[in-house]
């Protein structure tokens, strides 16, 4: 299933978000493994900004200082 096309939330290359938010490729790989919704077109990987930001927030909330046992 594909999502309805929203010009303001067009899928962007994953690298774009990595550069913008300063996230390493390894972290992106782990996030994808943990459920970050991505879209592969040919050999390239894209992601919607809304989904990326939402996922990033959940990951960040999990790793707040003091949460570690």
């Amino acid at each position, binding site marked *: *299933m*594909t999502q309805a096309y929203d010009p303001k939330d067009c*899928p*962007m*290359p994953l690298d774009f978000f990595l550069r913008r938010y300063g996230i390493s490729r390894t972290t992106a790989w782990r996030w994808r493994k943990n459920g970050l919704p*991505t879209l*592969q077109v*040919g050999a390239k990987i894209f992601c919607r900004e809304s989904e990326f930001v939402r996922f990033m927030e959940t990951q960040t909330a999990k790793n707040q200082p003091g949460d570690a046992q």
Partner: protein
Amino acid sequence: MNQDLLAQAKQRLPLSALMAQLGFGDCAKKSARCPFHEDSSASFSLYIGDDGEERWKCFAGCGQGDAIDFFAKHRGLSNTDACREYIRLADVPPPPAPPSSSNPSPSVQPPFDWQSCVAALTPEHRAKLAEWRGYTPEFVEWLHAQNLIGLFSGERIAFPVHDAQGKVIACHYRRKEDGSWRYFQKLEDIGARISPLIIGDMVTAKTIFAFESQWDYCAVADKLGWHVTTPGDTATIITRGAENSRLLAGLCAPDAVVCAFGQNDKPNPKTGIRAGAKWLAAVAAHCGCKCVQVVTPSPHKDANDWTRAGATRPEIEATIAAAQSVTVSNEPDLHAAPPRKVSKPAITLPEESDEPESAPFPLDALPLAMATIIAAVSRTERVPLALPAVGALGVVSAAIGAGLEVTSGPNRVTRANLYLLASAESGSGKSETFRLIAAPLVDHQARLLETWRQKTSPQLQSEIRVLDKEIATLERKAAKSGDLMERERLRGELEYKLARKDEMTARAAMPCIIAQVPGLHHGARSSPRSYHSHGGRCQGATGTDGSRRPARRRECDAQRRWQDHAHLPGRQESSAGMNQKKPRERKYK
């Protein structure tokens, strides 16, 4: 052939009338669809030639000519036979026969009447036959009552020849002069092939008795009293000679047992091979089921010889019970006579093996549905089981394609691809067999192609055009944008659109054809002419589309394209299962 007769026939039955008579009346016009091939456009033309005679031509390459050429092509006859039949069809009165002519051509005689032959076998003849062959009078009477024996052209004992519907179309008679057997009418004249004499229902029979000669059958049936009590679940097949064992192909049920009564004839002085042994081996090779040999005791030449020498019912029953299974072997016959020594052969020819070509195809190893289809095609086309079986394996392989993988070892995956090559003599039914076997796949493929043309392709094309417009807009915006962040965002969006467009363009290419049958066109070829230019390359070779790309690659491409039809937009990847190997889906559901 008398030219006057032909001219008369053409006047009485011109091409247009002939076509109407053959059921092609709607094609008898200047422009029509060709009756000889699957024609999507009008390739056929009937026109008046320079000599004022009606002629025809198929512009797709089926041929051209006059009424006789049309008739010969339609019936698959030689020119001579077509002329003869055409004259008969035109009802041209035959010329007065010369006084010396005592043997007119059978083909201009009226249709064969078997009942008159049966009626001609009088009680005196029947008594004489019983005495000659050593049968009981009751058995001969039963044979006569069953319309299984008659008298042809005077004193010639004859047996009926049936067509597929069970109608007697000719007779197989014994010449008194030399004891040889002939057919009347000539089978090629009536468009028939040699067929065995079958008594009983071969489809349901669990035990099938196979004989080389009619006399052997009569001898055994008489002694075993089959005319008194017909045994259940049995049938009899008589091949009418040692050379016709291939006629068993496709006739026997896979779970039946064939009891073959071989003959103890002498070896051929030239080849050193016994015709009876060759017949038995060929029966075992073609019957497609278990075959056992009922051995006639050695001093006797055949079963009839044995019964005339005093064989009794218990003896024959004991021999049948002791029948040994026949194994087909490709090993040389060590009992055969050594080849003749030639001092200085001028040329050395490759030795021809008289052994059967191969072991019978293991039909029982296949799924029941597949085995049933193979047996049915083999029976319909009268070809050995191996031919449709190889085709069926190829079709199944092509249908599965890369859609199924078996992990056959560590780091090793095997797919269902098979590379098969079936070869047989010209005219032995290869194309027709493959056409029947591949028909389901070809039909399904044609339906998918039609769906692709009507639905998928327009959707893809419209999507590509929309993407083109969006790309152009994004390019303009990115060029005008002064904000670096915005510019980078637009570039990212543009990258996505371009990737989508590339993918859509790849999908919009024409799907490959997986299976193709000569004579059928399912759209990948633009015209019949272009197909013929590639003709023969694809026949039987499932998984090829005539292009120069490797077959496996093409198959994978085709597979991907067909699969893509189900979900047009880009694949939505589930990241939760990214590293888990997903089972591949079947291509055709």
